[in-house]
């Protein structure tokens, strides 16, 4: 649907210069509908509608001057988070795209109106929350109507989610357009969501504290089961639940995972739930918004370590869910087993997702799955998973089961998602080990207290106080192993580590020299372009933008290359 809208928009421009002449508008009308019919044979309803509306629009042009843009923005706002009733939106969007042409001419006048610019931001925030609330209500309804069996609930939840998301399936299955649209949304939502990030974080913290009490007993029991390797399928099946969680999840692991997830959608589109995809994209938007809050995220992860047990324990209790999830999960498991060395990580993420689901109350089935999966996980992975699980579950009070979201995430995105977890894990590992053993249910403040207690003790015995920040060894190992495609010895890893250290040192020296050469004190993008030219990556034939488009995830690309979107906006804001 949105594809058609996007196809419409370029057609709008020929109208714009003609608007000045009312006599020509009639001609333009005839041209535009014909174009529309040719380009979009799919839409039949809107074809008729715009013809009528276009005429009315042009006649009413002066009166609706200011309303059109606001209406369009409202439509855009409502369109993005709500994927329901798209058919009705089709006609409205077609009509509004027509008005957009009118509005584009008038945009310079209306842009000065601050009210128009401010309104969409607040509305989007509400829409997101409304959507999440609505999803939760759906799940609550499902739970209320179902039996004690978590399986049936989860199954019904999945079914209902599938039904509601039927309309969205079309949209989400086309990967090409989901991402840019989501990125647009995410980018536009970024300024709106950033102020909300703090709110969400505080709410998350509160939820963490409330959950911590309940989870104390569970956490310890769960810790043992975490290490199981098998049953990855469980997590995959439970990934559907994660979708809601992801939407709520403000402290996302990495901005890249949504990108990877988007890529994986293609792979798992057949098996994954459409709801998973929808919530996934929402999550992407959320995650991109949270990108800047990575540091806060790490804090949350630490706090959530204790609460991770909650997820695991609830999962352990339920056993029925396994049977139902197993068949669907079986397929996912096969796919998930692609990255062998990533399995522990994936499991960590799976347990995360499972934990989130277990919080919602689908735990019995999942817990049994969860346990076998967790065995091979290493402690570090556990910790990481715990953090992530906690992050996931804390945000969701009622989780919607949406299988295959984890599945979508894990196998392909493992590489990317591993980067951020590694970064997060590195500082968190020191902290996690002590609180994890001592008191799992400790809320955030005790963790913080433990931090200053343990750190000074260790520092007194250690030699250097200010330790140089290093790239985590696990990250280098992962990346190198992925590209080597064969087993690598430990000595080789050490040498690779030294090489990468030298490389980055030289890199930073060069950047400093270039910045100094330009008479500045801050490294900027221009300095990096000079560096890349020297490296031979950027040439006369290969401009920087092409490299950005080719290698960077879409969120970063939106930051670097300004994009003009509808409503007279340029992303990033200048």
């Amino acid at each position, binding site marked *: 649907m949105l594809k058609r809208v996007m196809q419409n928009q370029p057609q709008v421009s020929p109208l714009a210069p003609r608007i000045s002449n009312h006599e020509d508008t009639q001609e333009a009308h005839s041209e535009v509908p014909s174009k529309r019919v040719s380009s979009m044979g799919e839409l039949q309803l809107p074809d008729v509608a715009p013809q009528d509306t276009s005429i009315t629009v042009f006649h009413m042009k002066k009166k609706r001057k200011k309303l059109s843009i606001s209406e369009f923005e409202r439509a855009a706002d409502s369109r993005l988070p709500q994927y329901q009733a798209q058919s009705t939106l089709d006609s409205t969007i077609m009509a509004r795209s027509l008005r957009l042409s009118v509005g584009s001419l008038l945009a310079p006048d209306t842009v000065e109106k601050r009210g128009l610019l401010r309104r969409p931001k607040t509305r989007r925030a509400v829409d997101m929350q409304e959507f999440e609330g609505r999803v939760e209500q759906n799940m609550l309804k499902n739970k209320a109507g179902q039996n004690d069996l978590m399986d049936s609930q989860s199954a019904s939840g999945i079914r209902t989610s599938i039904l509601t998301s039927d309309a969205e399936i079309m949209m989400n299955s086309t990967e090409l357009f989901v991402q840019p649209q989501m990125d647009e949304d995410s980018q536009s939502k970024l300024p709106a969501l950033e102020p909300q990030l703090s709110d969400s974080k505080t709410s998350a913290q509160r939820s963490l504290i409330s959950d911590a009490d309940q989870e104390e007993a569970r956490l310890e029991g769960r810790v043992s089961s975490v290490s199981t390797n098998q049953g990855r399928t469980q997590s995959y099946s439970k990934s559907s639940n994660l979708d809601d969680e992801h939407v709520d999840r403000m402290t996302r692991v990495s901005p890249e995972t949504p990108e990877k997830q988007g890529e994986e959608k293609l792979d798992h589109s057949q098996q994954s739930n459409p709801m998973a995809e929808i919530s996934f994209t929402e999550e992407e938007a959320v995650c991109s918004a949270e990108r800047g809050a990575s540091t806060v995220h790490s804090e949350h992860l630490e706090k959530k370590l204790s609460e991770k047990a909650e997820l695991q324990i609830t999962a352990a209790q339920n056993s029925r869910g396994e049977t139902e999830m197993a068949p669907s999960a079986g397929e996912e498991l096969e796919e998930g087993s692609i990255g062998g060395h990533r399995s522990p990580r994936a499991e960590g993420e799976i347990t995360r997702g499972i934990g989130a689901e277990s919080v919602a109350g689908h735990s019995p089935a999942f817990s049994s799955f969860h346990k076998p999966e967790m065995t091979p996980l290493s402690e570090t992975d556990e910790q990481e998973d715990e953090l992530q699980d906690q992050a996931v579950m804390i945000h969701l009070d009622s989780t919607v089961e949406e299988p295959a979201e984890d599945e979508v995430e894990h196998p392909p995105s493992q590489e990317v998602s591993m980067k951020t977890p590694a970064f997060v894990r590195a500082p968190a590992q020191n902290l996690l080990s002590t609180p994890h053993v001592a008191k799992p249910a400790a809320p955030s403040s005790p963790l913080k207290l433990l931090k200053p207690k343990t750190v000074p003790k260790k520092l007194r015995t250690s030699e250097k106080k200010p330790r140089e920040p290093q790239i985590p060894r696990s990250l280098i190992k992962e990346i190198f192993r992925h590209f080597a495609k064969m087993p690598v010895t430990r000595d080789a890893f050490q040498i690779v580590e030294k090489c990468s250290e030298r490389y980055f040192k030289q890199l930073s020296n*060069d950047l400093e*020299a*270039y910045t100094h*050469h*330009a*008479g500045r004190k801050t490294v900027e993008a*221009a*300095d990096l372009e*000079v560096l890349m*030219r*020297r490296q031979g990556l950027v040439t006369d034939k290969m401009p920087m933008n092409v490299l950005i488009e080719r290698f960077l995830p879409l969120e970063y690309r939106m930051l670097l290359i300004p994009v003009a979107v509808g409503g007279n906006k340029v992303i990033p804001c200048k």
Partner: protein
Amino acid sequence: MAAAGAEERQVLAQRLKAAVHYTVGCLCQEVEEDKDVQFSKQTIAAISEITFRQCEIFAKDLEMFARHAKRTTVTTEDVKLLARRSNSLLKYITQKSEELASSNMEQKEKKRKKSSAAKGERTPGEQEAAVTENEDSNMA
């Protein structure tokens, strides 16, 4: 017109390549006499080809550095930035640049003293010699 220009450029490039090849041959002969080793013709040809291409890259990098510093003239600062990669070359170039700077200062002082006298002919000649010295250091 454009084709003729391109042909001219090609002819010029060939002449330049020939000049570089000749200079490289002379330098290799000196090294042969010094170190008592032999240089095959293919070696000399390879070295001259490499030098020519590297000069192109240098020129582009220098232009880029000058633009990076928001200038339109390539200065010794850009050259120093270019030679940063190899420490010995950087030291050599900084030495030479300091010598040049000092000689320039001396020249300026001499100019002030002898501005009345008709010795303007000597100073351009000295400057040309200094420029060729700089070029040789870059080539090295």
